[in-house]
Protein backbone atom coordinates (compact mmCIF):
# COMPACT_ATOMS: atom_id res chain seq x y z
CA UNK A 1 0.00 0.00 0.00
CA UNK A 2 1.55 3.22 -1.15
CA UNK A 3 -0.07 6.18 0.60
CA UNK A 4 2.55 8.78 -0.38
CA UNK A 5 1.20 8.95 -3.93
CA UNK A 6 -1.95 10.57 -2.60
CA UNK A 7 -0.08 13.54 -1.07
CA UNK A 8 -1.21 16.12 -3.69
CA UNK A 9 -4.81 15.13 -3.00
CA UNK A 10 -4.34 15.32 0.79
CA UNK A 11 -2.86 18.81 0.50
CA UNK A 12 -5.68 20.04 -1.72
CA UNK A 13 -8.38 18.56 0.54
CA UNK A 14 -6.80 20.08 3.64
CA UNK A 15 -6.46 23.47 1.95
CA UNK A 16 -10.10 23.34 0.83
CA UNK A 17 -11.29 22.77 4.39
CA UNK A 18 -8.95 25.48 5.74
CA UNK A 19 -10.21 28.02 3.22
CA UNK A 20 -13.84 27.29 4.11
CA UNK A 21 -13.04 27.33 7.86
CA UNK A 22 -11.74 30.91 7.64
CA UNK A 23 -15.40 31.84 7.17
CA UNK A 24 -15.95 31.09 10.84
CA UNK A 25 -13.86 34.13 11.83
CA UNK A 26 -14.54 37.79 11.26
CA UNK A 27 -11.49 38.72 9.26
CA UNK A 28 -10.70 42.41 9.00
CA UNK A 29 -8.55 44.46 6.63
CA UNK A 30 -5.81 42.62 4.78
CA UNK A 31 -6.75 39.36 6.53
CA UNK A 32 -9.92 39.24 4.43
CA UNK A 33 -7.71 37.92 1.64
CA UNK A 34 -6.74 34.94 3.82
CA UNK A 35 -8.81 32.36 1.86
CA UNK A 36 -7.16 33.46 -1.39
CA UNK A 37 -3.67 33.23 0.07
CA UNK A 38 -4.42 29.82 1.62
CA UNK A 39 -5.63 28.66 -1.79
CA UNK A 40 -2.64 30.04 -3.67
CA UNK A 41 -0.22 28.58 -1.13
CA UNK A 42 -1.91 25.19 -1.27
CA UNK A 43 -1.95 25.09 -5.06
CA UNK A 44 1.74 26.06 -5.31
CA UNK A 45 2.66 23.38 -2.73
CA UNK A 46 0.58 20.79 -4.62
CA UNK A 47 2.24 21.77 -7.91
CA UNK A 48 5.66 21.21 -6.31
CA UNK A 49 4.69 17.83 -4.83
CA UNK A 50 3.04 16.57 -7.98
CA UNK A 51 6.08 17.57 -10.03
CA UNK A 52 8.20 15.47 -7.70
CA UNK A 53 6.02 12.45 -8.53
CA UNK A 54 6.69 12.74 -12.30
CA UNK A 55 8.09 9.47 -13.54
CA UNK A 56 6.89 5.93 -14.00
CA UNK A 57 3.30 5.19 -13.04
CA UNK A 58 2.73 4.71 -9.32
CA UNK A 59 -0.32 3.21 -7.71
CA UNK A 60 -1.71 4.54 -4.45
CA UNK A 61 -3.68 2.55 -1.87
CA UNK A 62 -4.73 -0.74 -3.48
CA UNK A 63 -4.59 0.72 -6.98
CA UNK A 64 -7.40 3.24 -6.47
CA UNK A 65 -5.08 6.15 -7.27
CA UNK A 66 -3.04 5.85 -10.47
CA UNK A 67 -0.41 8.60 -10.56
CA UNK A 68 0.59 8.29 -14.19
CA UNK A 69 2.47 10.91 -16.19
CA UNK A 70 -0.79 11.66 -17.97
CA UNK A 71 -2.50 12.23 -14.64
CA UNK A 72 0.31 14.49 -13.47
CA UNK A 73 0.33 16.54 -16.69
CA UNK A 74 -3.44 17.01 -16.45
CA UNK A 75 -3.12 17.84 -12.74
CA UNK A 76 -0.71 20.62 -13.72
CA UNK A 77 -3.20 22.04 -16.21
CA UNK A 78 -6.00 21.87 -13.62
CA UNK A 79 -3.94 23.47 -10.84
CA UNK A 80 -2.70 26.27 -13.09
CA UNK A 81 -6.23 27.07 -14.21
CA UNK A 82 -7.45 26.98 -10.58
CA UNK A 83 -4.66 29.42 -9.70
CA UNK A 84 -5.63 31.66 -12.62
CA UNK A 85 -9.30 31.53 -11.60
CA UNK A 86 -8.46 32.60 -8.03
CA UNK A 87 -6.53 35.52 -9.55
CA UNK A 88 -9.42 36.34 -11.90
CA UNK A 89 -11.80 36.37 -8.92
CA UNK A 90 -9.80 39.14 -7.23
CA UNK A 91 -12.43 41.70 -6.25
CA UNK A 92 -15.12 39.70 -8.04
CA UNK A 93 -18.51 41.07 -6.98
CA UNK A 94 -20.02 37.56 -7.02
CA UNK A 95 -17.77 36.46 -4.18
CA UNK A 96 -18.24 39.59 -2.08
CA UNK A 97 -19.19 38.72 1.47
CA UNK A 98 -18.63 34.99 0.98
CA UNK A 99 -15.05 34.70 -0.14
CA UNK A 100 -14.25 31.67 2.08
CA UNK A 101 -16.98 29.55 0.48
CA UNK A 102 -16.21 30.88 -2.97
CA UNK A 103 -12.49 30.07 -2.81
CA UNK A 104 -13.14 26.84 -0.90
CA UNK A 105 -15.49 25.61 -3.62
CA UNK A 106 -12.98 26.44 -6.36
CA UNK A 107 -10.41 24.40 -4.45
CA UNK A 108 -12.91 21.56 -3.91
CA UNK A 109 -13.71 21.51 -7.62
CA UNK A 110 -9.98 21.44 -8.43
CA UNK A 111 -9.55 18.51 -6.02
CA UNK A 112 -12.35 16.67 -7.79
CA UNK A 113 -10.74 17.31 -11.17
CA UNK A 114 -7.40 16.01 -9.88
CA UNK A 115 -9.12 12.91 -8.51
CA UNK A 116 -10.76 12.35 -11.90
CA UNK A 117 -7.53 12.44 -13.89
CA UNK A 118 -5.56 10.31 -11.41
CA UNK A 119 -8.28 7.72 -10.82
CA UNK A 120 -7.35 4.05 -10.96
CA UNK A 121 -10.81 2.79 -10.13
CA UNK A 122 -14.30 3.47 -11.45
CA UNK A 123 -15.53 4.43 -7.97
CA UNK A 124 -12.75 7.02 -7.58
CA UNK A 125 -13.38 8.33 -11.09
CA UNK A 126 -17.04 8.73 -10.17
CA UNK A 127 -16.29 10.51 -6.88
CA UNK A 128 -13.91 12.87 -8.68
CA UNK A 129 -16.43 13.79 -11.35
CA UNK A 130 -19.13 14.33 -8.73
CA UNK A 131 -16.91 16.40 -6.44
CA UNK A 132 -16.11 18.74 -9.31
CA UNK A 133 -19.71 18.88 -10.57
CA UNK A 134 -21.37 19.48 -7.21
CA UNK A 135 -18.88 22.23 -6.31
CA UNK A 136 -19.51 23.90 -9.65
CA UNK A 137 -23.31 23.73 -9.27
CA UNK A 138 -22.97 25.84 -6.13
CA UNK A 139 -20.36 28.15 -7.67
CA UNK A 140 -22.66 28.89 -10.62
CA UNK A 141 -25.45 29.89 -8.28
CA UNK A 142 -23.27 31.63 -5.70
CA UNK A 143 -24.62 35.06 -6.63
CA UNK A 144 -27.99 34.27 -5.02
CA UNK A 145 -29.36 37.76 -5.48
CA UNK A 146 -28.90 37.65 -9.25
CA UNK A 147 -31.63 35.62 -10.90
CA UNK A 148 -29.50 34.54 -13.86
CA UNK A 149 -26.89 33.08 -11.54
CA UNK A 150 -29.51 31.00 -9.72
CA UNK A 151 -31.06 29.94 -13.00
CA UNK A 152 -27.70 28.86 -14.35
CA UNK A 153 -26.95 26.88 -11.19
CA UNK A 154 -30.27 25.03 -11.29
CA UNK A 155 -30.00 24.30 -15.02
CA UNK A 156 -26.47 22.99 -14.58
CA UNK A 157 -27.56 20.84 -11.64
CA UNK A 158 -30.46 19.24 -13.48
CA UNK A 159 -28.57 18.50 -16.70
CA UNK A 160 -25.49 17.51 -14.73
CA UNK A 161 -27.50 15.11 -12.56
CA UNK A 162 -28.93 13.42 -15.67
CA UNK A 163 -25.33 13.01 -16.86
CA UNK A 164 -24.44 11.51 -13.46
CA UNK A 165 -27.28 9.01 -13.67
CA UNK A 166 -26.13 7.90 -17.15
CA UNK A 167 -22.53 7.66 -15.90
CA UNK A 168 -23.54 5.40 -12.99
CA UNK A 169 -25.56 3.17 -15.28
CA UNK A 170 -22.69 2.96 -17.76
CA UNK A 171 -20.25 2.10 -14.98
CA UNK A 172 -22.70 -0.46 -13.56
CA UNK A 173 -22.92 -2.24 -16.92
CA UNK A 174 -19.14 -2.11 -17.33
CA UNK A 175 -18.77 -3.59 -13.84
CA UNK A 176 -21.34 -6.23 -14.72
CA UNK A 177 -19.46 -7.28 -17.84
CA UNK A 178 -16.00 -7.36 -16.23
CA UNK A 179 -16.65 -8.11 -12.56
CA UNK A 180 -14.22 -5.48 -11.31
CA UNK A 181 -14.12 -1.73 -10.75
CA UNK A 182 -10.34 -1.43 -11.17
CA UNK A 183 -9.69 0.41 -14.44
CA UNK A 184 -6.52 -1.55 -15.11
CA UNK A 185 -8.24 -4.90 -14.57
CA UNK A 186 -11.12 -3.75 -16.79
CA UNK A 187 -8.56 -2.98 -19.49
CA UNK A 188 -7.11 -6.49 -19.23
CA UNK A 189 -10.56 -8.08 -19.38
CA UNK A 190 -11.73 -5.95 -22.30
CA UNK A 191 -8.58 -6.75 -24.26
CA UNK A 192 -9.75 -10.37 -24.43
CA UNK A 193 -13.45 -9.64 -24.72
CA UNK A 194 -13.79 -10.19 -28.45
CA UNK A 195 -15.72 -7.92 -30.79
CA UNK A 196 -18.12 -5.47 -29.21
CA UNK A 197 -20.93 -6.20 -31.64
CA UNK A 198 -21.63 -9.54 -29.99
CA UNK A 199 -22.04 -7.91 -26.56
CA UNK A 200 -24.97 -5.50 -26.38
CA UNK A 201 -24.39 -4.67 -22.71
CA UNK A 202 -20.83 -3.52 -23.45
CA UNK A 203 -22.07 -1.37 -26.32
CA UNK A 204 -24.65 0.10 -23.95
CA UNK A 205 -22.08 0.83 -21.27
CA UNK A 206 -19.68 2.49 -23.74
CA UNK A 207 -22.51 4.64 -25.17
CA UNK A 208 -23.74 5.66 -21.71
CA UNK A 209 -20.24 6.53 -20.48
CA UNK A 210 -19.53 8.53 -23.65
CA UNK A 211 -22.83 10.38 -23.22
CA UNK A 212 -22.19 11.14 -19.56
CA UNK A 213 -18.64 12.36 -20.13
CA UNK A 214 -19.99 14.28 -23.14
CA UNK A 215 -22.29 16.14 -20.73
CA UNK A 216 -19.30 17.16 -18.63
CA UNK A 217 -17.14 18.11 -21.63
CA UNK A 218 -20.17 19.90 -23.19
CA UNK A 219 -20.00 17.94 -26.44
CA UNK A 220 -22.94 17.80 -28.88
CA UNK A 221 -25.65 16.42 -28.42
CA UNK A 222 -25.21 16.90 -24.68
CA UNK A 223 -24.36 20.61 -24.87
CA UNK A 224 -27.80 22.25 -24.48
CA UNK A 225 -27.01 23.58 -21.03
CA UNK A 226 -23.66 25.13 -21.92
CA UNK A 227 -24.56 28.59 -23.35
CA UNK A 228 -27.10 29.43 -20.62
CA UNK A 229 -25.00 28.14 -17.75
CA UNK A 230 -21.84 29.82 -19.05
CA UNK A 231 -23.68 33.11 -19.50
CA UNK A 232 -25.43 33.07 -16.14
CA UNK A 233 -22.53 31.97 -13.95
CA UNK A 234 -20.06 34.52 -12.56
CA UNK A 235 -17.42 34.96 -15.29
CA UNK A 236 -14.43 33.55 -13.33
CA UNK A 237 -16.52 30.44 -12.64
CA UNK A 238 -17.33 30.23 -16.35
CA UNK A 239 -13.61 30.40 -17.06
CA UNK A 240 -13.03 27.52 -14.63
CA UNK A 241 -15.82 25.45 -16.17
CA UNK A 242 -14.46 25.85 -19.66
CA UNK A 243 -10.86 25.05 -18.68
CA UNK A 244 -10.80 22.81 -15.60
CA UNK A 245 -13.93 20.78 -16.26
CA UNK A 246 -12.95 20.29 -19.89
CA UNK A 247 -9.51 19.03 -18.83
CA UNK A 248 -10.99 16.62 -16.30
CA UNK A 249 -13.62 15.33 -18.73
CA UNK A 250 -11.08 14.81 -21.52
CA UNK A 251 -8.80 13.10 -18.99
CA UNK A 252 -11.65 10.74 -18.10
CA UNK A 253 -12.33 10.11 -21.81
CA UNK A 254 -8.65 9.21 -22.34
CA UNK A 255 -8.49 6.97 -19.24
CA UNK A 256 -11.68 5.05 -20.02
CA UNK A 257 -11.59 4.86 -23.83
CA UNK A 258 -8.01 5.24 -25.09
CA UNK A 259 -6.65 3.57 -21.95
CA UNK A 260 -8.94 0.86 -20.61
CA UNK A 261 -11.00 0.09 -23.74
CA UNK A 262 -7.97 0.19 -26.05
CA UNK A 263 -8.66 -3.36 -27.21
CA UNK A 264 -11.95 -2.38 -28.82
CA UNK A 265 -10.88 0.90 -30.37
CA UNK A 266 -12.31 -0.03 -33.77
CA UNK A 267 -15.72 -0.45 -32.15
CA UNK A 268 -16.02 2.84 -30.24
CA UNK A 269 -14.07 5.15 -32.53
CA UNK A 270 -17.14 5.73 -34.72
CA UNK A 271 -19.17 6.67 -31.63
CA UNK A 272 -16.64 9.21 -30.33
CA UNK A 273 -15.94 10.38 -33.87
CA UNK A 274 -19.63 11.14 -34.37
CA UNK A 275 -19.77 13.14 -31.12
CA UNK A 276 -16.63 15.05 -32.17
CA UNK A 277 -18.01 15.83 -35.63
CA UNK A 278 -21.38 16.98 -34.27
CA UNK A 279 -19.64 19.19 -31.69
CA UNK A 280 -17.43 20.86 -34.29
CA UNK A 281 -20.33 21.54 -36.66
CA UNK A 282 -22.97 22.63 -34.12
CA UNK A 283 -20.54 24.54 -31.89
CA UNK A 284 -19.11 26.61 -34.72
CA UNK A 285 -22.49 27.38 -36.27
CA UNK A 286 -23.92 28.34 -32.86
CA UNK A 287 -21.00 30.65 -32.15
CA UNK A 288 -21.59 32.57 -35.39
CA UNK A 289 -24.85 34.06 -34.09
CA UNK A 290 -23.85 35.35 -30.67
CA UNK A 291 -23.72 38.98 -29.59
CA UNK A 292 -22.31 38.28 -26.15
CA UNK A 293 -18.62 37.40 -26.02
CA UNK A 294 -19.30 35.18 -23.00
CA UNK A 295 -21.94 33.22 -24.96
CA UNK A 296 -19.68 33.11 -28.00
CA UNK A 297 -16.94 31.60 -25.83
CA UNK A 298 -19.48 29.05 -24.57
CA UNK A 299 -20.32 27.92 -28.11
CA UNK A 300 -16.64 28.03 -28.98
CA UNK A 301 -15.92 25.74 -26.03
CA UNK A 302 -18.43 23.26 -27.49
CA UNK A 303 -16.58 23.41 -30.81
CA UNK A 304 -13.21 23.06 -29.08
CA UNK A 305 -14.50 19.98 -27.24
CA UNK A 306 -15.12 18.57 -30.72
CA UNK A 307 -11.54 19.20 -31.85
CA UNK A 308 -10.22 17.64 -28.63
CA UNK A 309 -12.40 14.55 -29.05
CA UNK A 310 -10.75 13.87 -32.43
CA UNK A 311 -7.66 12.90 -30.45
CA UNK A 312 -9.74 10.53 -28.31
CA UNK A 313 -11.58 9.06 -31.30
CA UNK A 314 -8.40 7.91 -33.07
CA UNK A 315 -7.42 6.05 -29.91
CA UNK A 316 -3.69 6.13 -30.60
CA UNK A 317 -0.70 7.41 -28.67
CA UNK A 318 -0.41 10.28 -31.16
CA UNK A 319 -4.03 11.12 -30.50
CA UNK A 320 -3.52 11.23 -26.73
CA UNK A 321 -0.38 13.36 -27.21
CA UNK A 322 -2.29 15.82 -29.39
CA UNK A 323 -5.13 16.03 -26.86
CA UNK A 324 -2.66 16.84 -24.07
CA UNK A 325 -0.91 19.55 -26.10
CA UNK A 326 -4.12 21.08 -27.38
CA UNK A 327 -5.56 21.14 -23.86
CA UNK A 328 -2.56 23.12 -22.62
CA UNK A 329 -2.94 25.56 -25.53
CA UNK A 330 -6.73 25.73 -25.15
CA UNK A 331 -6.58 26.45 -21.42
CA UNK A 332 -4.00 29.21 -21.97
CA UNK A 333 -5.93 31.01 -24.69
CA UNK A 334 -9.32 30.60 -22.99
CA UNK A 335 -8.03 32.02 -19.71
CA UNK A 336 -6.51 34.99 -21.57
CA UNK A 337 -9.79 35.67 -23.38
CA UNK A 338 -11.86 35.40 -20.20
CA UNK A 339 -9.46 37.72 -18.36
CA UNK A 340 -10.18 40.46 -20.91
CA UNK A 341 -13.94 39.84 -20.69
CA UNK A 342 -13.72 40.09 -16.88
CA UNK A 343 -11.79 43.37 -17.15
CA UNK A 344 -14.49 44.84 -19.38
CA UNK A 345 -17.29 43.54 -17.15
CA UNK A 346 -15.81 45.32 -14.16
CA UNK A 347 -15.81 48.60 -16.09
CA UNK A 348 -19.22 48.75 -17.73
CA UNK A 349 -22.67 47.29 -17.36
CA UNK A 350 -23.21 44.40 -19.83
CA UNK A 351 -19.45 44.26 -20.38
CA UNK A 352 -19.77 40.83 -21.95
CA UNK A 353 -21.67 42.22 -24.97
CA UNK A 354 -19.63 42.47 -28.14
CA UNK A 355 -20.61 46.13 -28.66
CA UNK A 356 -19.05 47.17 -25.37
CA UNK A 357 -15.70 46.03 -26.73
CA UNK A 358 -15.83 48.59 -29.56
CA UNK A 359 -12.56 50.47 -29.56
CA UNK A 360 -11.37 48.79 -26.35
CA UNK A 361 -8.09 47.82 -27.98
CA UNK A 362 -7.31 51.45 -28.81
CA UNK A 363 -7.93 52.47 -25.24
CA UNK A 364 -5.97 49.65 -23.64
CA UNK A 365 -3.61 48.41 -26.35
CA UNK A 366 -2.17 45.60 -24.23
CA UNK A 367 -5.64 44.19 -23.62
CA UNK A 368 -6.35 44.44 -27.34
CA UNK A 369 -3.14 42.58 -28.16
CA UNK A 370 -3.90 39.78 -25.66
CA UNK A 371 -7.49 39.37 -26.91
CA UNK A 372 -6.34 39.36 -30.55
CA UNK A 373 -3.68 36.75 -29.79
CA UNK A 374 -6.23 34.59 -27.95
CA UNK A 375 -8.78 34.86 -30.77
CA UNK A 376 -6.24 34.16 -33.53
CA UNK A 377 -4.93 31.18 -31.58
CA UNK A 378 -8.43 29.81 -30.92
CA UNK A 379 -9.16 30.15 -34.63
CA UNK A 380 -5.96 28.23 -35.38
CA UNK A 381 -3.84 30.83 -37.13
CA UNK A 382 -0.23 29.77 -37.67
CA UNK A 383 2.17 29.95 -35.95
CA UNK A 384 0.30 30.30 -32.63
CA UNK A 385 -0.24 27.54 -30.07
CA UNK A 386 -3.78 26.79 -31.24
CA UNK A 387 -2.52 26.10 -34.75
CA UNK A 388 0.14 23.66 -33.57
CA UNK A 389 -2.44 21.86 -31.42
CA UNK A 390 -4.97 21.55 -34.23
CA UNK A 391 -2.26 20.46 -36.64
CA UNK A 392 -1.25 17.67 -34.23
CA UNK A 393 -4.88 16.58 -33.81
CA UNK A 394 -5.54 16.46 -37.56
CA UNK A 395 -2.20 14.71 -38.14
CA UNK A 396 -3.15 12.08 -35.55
CA UNK A 397 -6.51 11.62 -37.28
CA UNK A 398 -4.84 11.09 -40.66
CA UNK A 399 -2.32 8.64 -39.14
CA UNK A 400 -5.22 6.80 -37.52
CA UNK A 401 -7.07 6.34 -40.84
CA UNK A 402 -9.71 8.93 -39.97
CA UNK A 403 -9.06 11.36 -42.79
CA UNK A 404 -12.73 12.38 -42.93
CA UNK A 405 -12.72 13.75 -39.40
CA UNK A 406 -9.60 15.80 -40.13
CA UNK A 407 -11.37 17.31 -43.15
CA UNK A 408 -14.45 18.17 -41.06
CA UNK A 409 -12.17 19.71 -38.44
CA UNK A 410 -10.31 21.81 -40.99
CA UNK A 411 -13.55 23.07 -42.55
CA UNK A 412 -14.98 23.85 -39.10
CA UNK A 413 -11.84 25.86 -38.27
CA UNK A 414 -12.36 27.94 -41.41
CA UNK A 415 -15.89 28.79 -40.27
CA UNK A 416 -14.64 29.65 -36.78
CA UNK A 417 -12.34 32.35 -38.21
CA UNK A 418 -15.44 34.49 -38.86
CA UNK A 419 -16.58 34.84 -35.26
CA UNK A 420 -13.18 34.87 -33.64
CA UNK A 421 -11.86 37.58 -35.97
CA UNK A 422 -15.05 39.61 -35.48
CA UNK A 423 -14.05 40.14 -31.84
CA UNK A 424 -10.55 41.31 -32.81
CA UNK A 425 -11.88 43.65 -35.49
CA UNK A 426 -14.44 45.16 -33.11
CA UNK A 427 -11.71 45.71 -30.52
CA UNK A 428 -9.52 47.71 -32.88
CA UNK A 429 -12.26 49.64 -34.67
CA UNK A 430 -12.74 53.32 -33.70
CA UNK A 431 -14.76 53.86 -30.55
CA UNK A 432 -18.11 55.64 -30.88
CA UNK A 433 -17.85 59.34 -30.10
CA UNK A 434 -18.19 60.21 -26.44
CA UNK A 435 -17.34 56.70 -25.29
CA UNK A 436 -14.46 56.41 -22.80
CA UNK A 437 -14.39 60.17 -22.18
CA UNK A 438 -16.46 60.68 -19.09
CA UNK A 439 -17.38 57.12 -18.07
CA UNK A 440 -16.23 55.27 -15.03
CA UNK A 441 -12.55 54.54 -14.95
CA UNK A 442 -11.99 51.73 -12.52
CA UNK A 443 -8.62 50.63 -11.40
CA UNK A 444 -7.86 47.27 -12.99
CA UNK A 445 -7.21 44.57 -10.38
CA UNK A 446 -3.55 43.64 -10.88
CA UNK A 447 -4.08 39.84 -10.66
CA UNK A 448 -6.66 39.91 -13.48
CA UNK A 449 -4.31 41.92 -15.69
CA UNK A 450 -1.49 39.52 -14.78
CA UNK A 451 -3.54 36.51 -15.94
CA UNK A 452 -4.30 38.28 -19.22
CA UNK A 453 -0.67 39.17 -19.88
CA UNK A 454 0.70 35.78 -18.81
CA UNK A 455 -1.93 34.11 -20.98
CA UNK A 456 -0.95 36.24 -23.96
CA UNK A 457 2.74 35.51 -23.46
CA UNK A 458 1.90 31.84 -22.94
CA UNK A 459 0.15 31.61 -26.31
CA UNK A 460 3.33 32.81 -28.01
CA UNK A 461 5.71 30.81 -25.80
CA UNK A 462 3.77 27.56 -26.33
CA UNK A 463 4.34 28.03 -30.05
CA UNK A 464 8.00 29.11 -29.84
CA UNK A 465 8.97 26.44 -27.30
CA UNK A 466 6.55 23.85 -28.66
CA UNK A 467 9.07 21.00 -28.75
CA UNK A 468 9.73 20.62 -24.99
CA UNK A 469 5.98 20.79 -24.31
CA UNK A 470 5.28 18.20 -26.99
CA UNK A 471 7.94 15.97 -25.42
CA UNK A 472 6.15 16.23 -22.07
CA UNK A 473 2.86 15.35 -23.77
CA UNK A 474 4.56 12.43 -25.48
CA UNK A 475 5.70 11.13 -22.10
CA UNK A 476 2.19 11.49 -20.77
CA UNK A 477 0.67 9.67 -23.75
CA UNK A 478 3.18 6.83 -23.34
CA UNK A 479 2.02 6.28 -19.78
CA UNK A 480 -1.49 5.74 -21.19
CA UNK A 481 -0.64 3.46 -24.12
CA UNK A 482 2.83 1.94 -24.01
Amino acid at each position, binding site marked *: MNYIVGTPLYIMSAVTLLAILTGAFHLKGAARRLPEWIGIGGIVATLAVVTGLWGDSQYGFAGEIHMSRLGILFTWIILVSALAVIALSWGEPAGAGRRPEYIGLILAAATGMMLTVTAGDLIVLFIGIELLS*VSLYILCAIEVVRERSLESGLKYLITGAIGTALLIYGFALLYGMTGTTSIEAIGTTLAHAGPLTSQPLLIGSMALIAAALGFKASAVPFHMWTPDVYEGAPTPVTAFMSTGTKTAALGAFLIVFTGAAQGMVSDWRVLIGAIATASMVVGNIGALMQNSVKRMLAWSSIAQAGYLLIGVAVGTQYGARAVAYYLIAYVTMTLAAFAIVILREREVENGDQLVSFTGYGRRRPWAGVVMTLAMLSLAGFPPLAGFIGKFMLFQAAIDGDMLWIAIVGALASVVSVVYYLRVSIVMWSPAPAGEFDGGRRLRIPAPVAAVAVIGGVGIVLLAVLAQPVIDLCQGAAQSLIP
Partner: protein
Amino acid sequence: MTVPISAYLMLSVGLLVLGMLGVIRRRNPLLLLLSIELMLNAGNVALIGFSRQWNDPSGQIFALVVMVVAAAEVVIGLGLTVAVFRSRMNLDVDEMSSMKG
Protein backbone atom coordinates in the same frame (compact mmCIF):
# COMPACT_ATOMS: atom_id res chain seq x y z
CA MET B 1 -34.01 -19.63 -4.33
CA THR B 2 -31.78 -17.02 -5.90
CA VAL B 3 -33.06 -14.20 -8.01
CA PRO B 4 -31.51 -14.36 -11.49
CA ILE B 5 -29.44 -11.42 -12.72
CA SER B 6 -31.91 -10.81 -15.54
CA ALA B 7 -34.57 -9.89 -12.96
CA TYR B 8 -32.31 -7.26 -11.40
CA LEU B 9 -31.49 -5.90 -14.84
CA MET B 10 -35.12 -5.71 -15.92
CA LEU B 11 -36.07 -3.89 -12.71
CA SER B 12 -33.22 -1.43 -13.13
CA VAL B 13 -33.92 -0.78 -16.80
CA GLY B 14 -37.56 -0.18 -15.89
CA LEU B 15 -36.54 2.35 -13.20
CA LEU B 16 -34.15 4.06 -15.62
CA VAL B 17 -36.83 4.42 -18.31
CA LEU B 18 -39.37 5.69 -15.75
CA GLY B 19 -36.85 8.26 -14.52
CA MET B 20 -36.03 9.36 -18.06
CA LEU B 21 -39.72 9.75 -18.92
CA GLY B 22 -40.12 11.83 -15.78
CA VAL B 23 -37.19 14.05 -16.71
CA ILE B 24 -38.65 14.59 -20.17
CA ARG B 25 -42.26 15.10 -19.10
CA ARG B 26 -42.09 16.97 -15.79
CA ARG B 27 -41.33 20.69 -15.59
CA ASN B 28 -41.32 21.20 -11.83
CA PRO B 29 -37.76 21.13 -10.45
CA LEU B 30 -38.86 19.10 -7.42
CA LEU B 31 -40.32 16.37 -9.63
CA LEU B 32 -37.27 16.59 -11.90
CA LEU B 33 -35.07 15.91 -8.89
CA LEU B 34 -37.32 13.01 -7.95
CA SER B 35 -37.04 11.53 -11.45
CA ILE B 36 -33.27 11.92 -11.43
CA GLU B 37 -33.19 10.13 -8.08
CA LEU B 38 -35.09 7.28 -9.75
CA MET B 39 -32.43 7.09 -12.50
CA LEU B 40 -29.62 7.06 -9.92
CA ASN B 41 -31.30 4.23 -8.04
CA ALA B 42 -31.70 2.29 -11.27
CA GLY B 43 -27.90 2.32 -11.41
CA ASN B 44 -27.76 1.18 -7.79
CA VAL B 45 -30.02 -1.81 -8.43
CA ALA B 46 -27.87 -2.85 -11.39
CA LEU B 47 -24.68 -2.44 -9.32
CA ILE B 48 -26.00 -4.56 -6.46
CA GLY B 49 -27.33 -7.20 -8.84
CA PHE B 50 -23.97 -7.50 -10.58
CA SER B 51 -22.24 -7.49 -7.21
CA ARG B 52 -24.23 -10.60 -6.26
CA GLN B 53 -23.56 -12.22 -9.59
CA TRP B 54 -19.79 -11.79 -9.31
CA ASN B 55 -19.81 -12.36 -5.55
CA ASP B 56 -17.66 -9.25 -5.26
CA PRO B 57 -18.32 -6.48 -2.70
CA SER B 58 -17.08 -3.52 -4.72
CA GLY B 59 -20.43 -3.14 -6.48
CA GLN B 60 -22.13 -2.65 -3.12
CA ILE B 61 -19.50 -0.14 -2.05
CA PHE B 62 -20.13 1.69 -5.31
CA ALA B 63 -23.87 1.76 -4.57
CA LEU B 64 -23.22 3.25 -1.10
CA VAL B 65 -21.03 5.95 -2.64
CA VAL B 66 -23.74 6.69 -5.20
CA MET B 67 -26.30 7.14 -2.41
CA VAL B 68 -24.09 9.66 -0.62
CA VAL B 69 -23.45 11.60 -3.82
CA ALA B 70 -27.15 11.53 -4.73
CA ALA B 71 -28.01 12.92 -1.29
CA ALA B 72 -25.51 15.75 -1.76
CA GLU B 73 -26.91 16.54 -5.19
CA VAL B 74 -30.50 16.62 -3.92
CA VAL B 75 -29.57 18.88 -1.00
CA ILE B 76 -28.09 21.42 -3.41
CA GLY B 77 -30.98 21.00 -5.83
CA LEU B 78 -33.51 21.68 -3.08
CA GLY B 79 -31.51 24.66 -1.84
CA LEU B 80 -31.42 26.19 -5.30
CA THR B 81 -35.10 25.45 -5.87
CA VAL B 82 -36.01 27.24 -2.65
CA ALA B 83 -33.82 30.20 -3.62
CA VAL B 84 -35.42 30.43 -7.07
CA PHE B 85 -38.88 30.11 -5.51
CA ARG B 86 -38.14 32.94 -3.10
CA SER B 87 -36.99 35.19 -5.88
CA ARG B 88 -39.95 34.65 -8.18
CA MET B 89 -42.60 32.56 -6.39
CA ASN B 90 -43.04 30.31 -9.39
CA LEU B 91 -41.71 26.88 -10.21
CA ASP B 92 -41.62 25.97 -13.88
CA VAL B 93 -38.35 25.34 -15.68
CA ASP B 94 -39.93 26.35 -19.00
CA GLU B 95 -40.46 29.84 -17.68
CA MET B 96 -36.81 30.07 -16.71
CA SER B 97 -35.88 31.88 -19.84
CA SER B 98 -34.21 35.11 -18.93
CA MET B 99 -31.51 33.57 -21.13
CA LYS B 100 -32.42 32.00 -24.46
CA GLY B 101 -30.72 28.76 -25.49
